[in-house]
């Protein structure tokens, strides 16, 4: 028997395979395909204090080995989530992690407070890849000062494990991770999507109604693995790695680079059973390699270069 259990700060996971926010709905959409009890954790679609309409369509366009999405953070809001979605999720023996965001620090704080009070939310994941209404729409997660403020403010109002989900659209992700750590994060998620654009050359317009969208899928995996490694060298708190994980092989790459857990996103669309397939594959790999505890794999990368 191999041990697959990992700890994300105070949060114990039976295995390291979680779902990536926004790619697994509120869990129920996948219940017919995946035994939700078998997941390390379920991270739900990003929530805001009040419901959001999101962007006009088209919201999705495929790119080489990837896709852009500009959903625009459509969601039913924290309260409807707690009332309508959480009871279903409480049935399962799998921690629910609430991903959330706001336009202002206040919105973050209020959303965090309400989610922390809800029965069945086991951790919070802050999406800071969204613009700050009160600071010229600068993205929270690309400016160290704003990031420090918003993470600190949320830290003050929640006792739940707090995961900060980093934006890759920065010069130095290790530095941003350090800011998150210093501001009180229990863990970081690396990474959110990278901003991209596809143009309809006949119409001379972006294909997405929102012009730009977030790039996800295998195309970005080498970038995400590198960022996990950089963050691993910069902070002590656990890392949840994600970005283009399609197979167990890919998940293992992230763990070797330093991720304590991994999140599967776009792969769910391509294969609804991706999460549990990946979990099985990781276990098989550990057996083949005679590794009895997955924790021995984490950060096991050796390089000739510092």
């Amino acid at each position, binding site marked *: 028997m191999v041990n697959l259990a990992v700890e994300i700060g105070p949060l114990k996971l039976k295995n390291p395979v979680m779902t990536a926010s*926004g*790619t*697994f*709905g509120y869990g129920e*959409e*996948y219940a*017919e*395909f995946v035994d939700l009890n078998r997941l390390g954790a379920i991270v739900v*679609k990003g929530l805001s204090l009040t419901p959001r*309409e*999101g962007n006009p*369509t*088209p*919201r*999705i*366009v*495929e790119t*080489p*080995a*990837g*896709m852009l*999405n500009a*959903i625009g953070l*459509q969601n039913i809001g924290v309260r409807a989530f707690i009332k309508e979605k959480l009871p279903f999720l409480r049935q399962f023996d799998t921690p629910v992690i609430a991903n959330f965001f706001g336009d202002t620090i206040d919105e973050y704080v209020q959303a965090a407070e309400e989610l922390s009070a809800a029965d069945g939310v086991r951790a919070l994941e802050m999406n800071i890849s969204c613009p700050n209404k009160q600071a010229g729409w600068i993205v929270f997660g690309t400016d160290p000062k704003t990031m420090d403020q918003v993470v600190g403010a949320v830290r003050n109002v929640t006792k739940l494990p707090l995961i900060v989900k980093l934006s890759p659209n920065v010069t130095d992700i290790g530095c941003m991770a350090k800011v998150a750590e210093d501001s009180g994060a229990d863990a970081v998620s690396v990474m959110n999507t990278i901003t991209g654009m596809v143009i309809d050359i006949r119409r001379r317009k972006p294909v997405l109604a929102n012009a730009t969208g977030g790039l996800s*899928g*295998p*195309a970005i995996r080498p970038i995400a693995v590198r960022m996990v490694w950089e963050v691993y060298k910069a902070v002590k708190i656990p890392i949840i790695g994600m970005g283009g994980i*399609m197979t167990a092989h890919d998940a293992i790459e992230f763990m070797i680079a330093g991720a304590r857990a991994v999140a599967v996103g*776009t792969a*769910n*669309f*391509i*294969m*609804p*059973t991706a999460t549990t397939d990946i979990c099985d594959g990781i276990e098989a790999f550990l057996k083949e390699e005679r590794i009895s505890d997955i924790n021995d794999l984490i950060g096991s990368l050796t390089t000739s270069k510092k």
Partner: protein
Amino acid sequence: MSRSFSATILHNDYQSSLFKRLVVKPSSTVILPKPGQFYMLQTGDSFDPLLKRPFSIFSYEENTLHFLYRIRGKGTHSLSKLKEGTDIQLIGPLGNSYPAPEGDFIAVAGGIGIASLFPLLQKFEKRAHLCYGARNKAELVMVDEARKAAKELFIATDDGSAGGKGFVTEYLKHCLDSFPGAPVYACGPTPMLHIVAKKVRDRGIPCYVSLEEHMACGIGACLGCVVKTTAGQKRVCKEGPVFAAEEIIW
């Protein structure tokens, strides 16, 4: 009977230079589809194309599912190259379906929209007044089969290369006048559906449109495919693809 299953390609043959018909045999027992439902199909063996693509069920027989598709971009090109004997992954049947018509009905198909309406024509054989339009003759497919399944068939092409010249919606008016009360079922490009909706609107008869949107998951999880309705945003893949026309905010 999982809706996520693999199937073996039995046929993948050209109907014309633009259209192919794909016949697959699921490797396990599957849920039977209803007219108007669709499947997400794997189109290749690599990450490029990456996403599955949505295709309406065209017809189904014991243990085989048939799809009719137009070769368009990367995904359909890739699909068109798959050979007999290849296994592909499918998810489906997905979405809702066309409500059953009580008597005769009017069907309006634009281009490949015929694929979605076809099982309806077949299930309610010889009851459809079918208006079938396309840009030109080459964009029409399965005309003989449609003629056989429908009660009557009106063809229109933008350039007059087959049937009447002009928009297929011109025939719709004639049908609406000739068969008052007959419900309308339409599938095709959004602008066409919008015209259909407008023409039917004030007549107080049911009008169902099957919408298309870019899809990533097909199962309601990604929120990529929403459409604005009078009852808020709905997902084309989950609450649709078939909507009452008056519900849509065009």
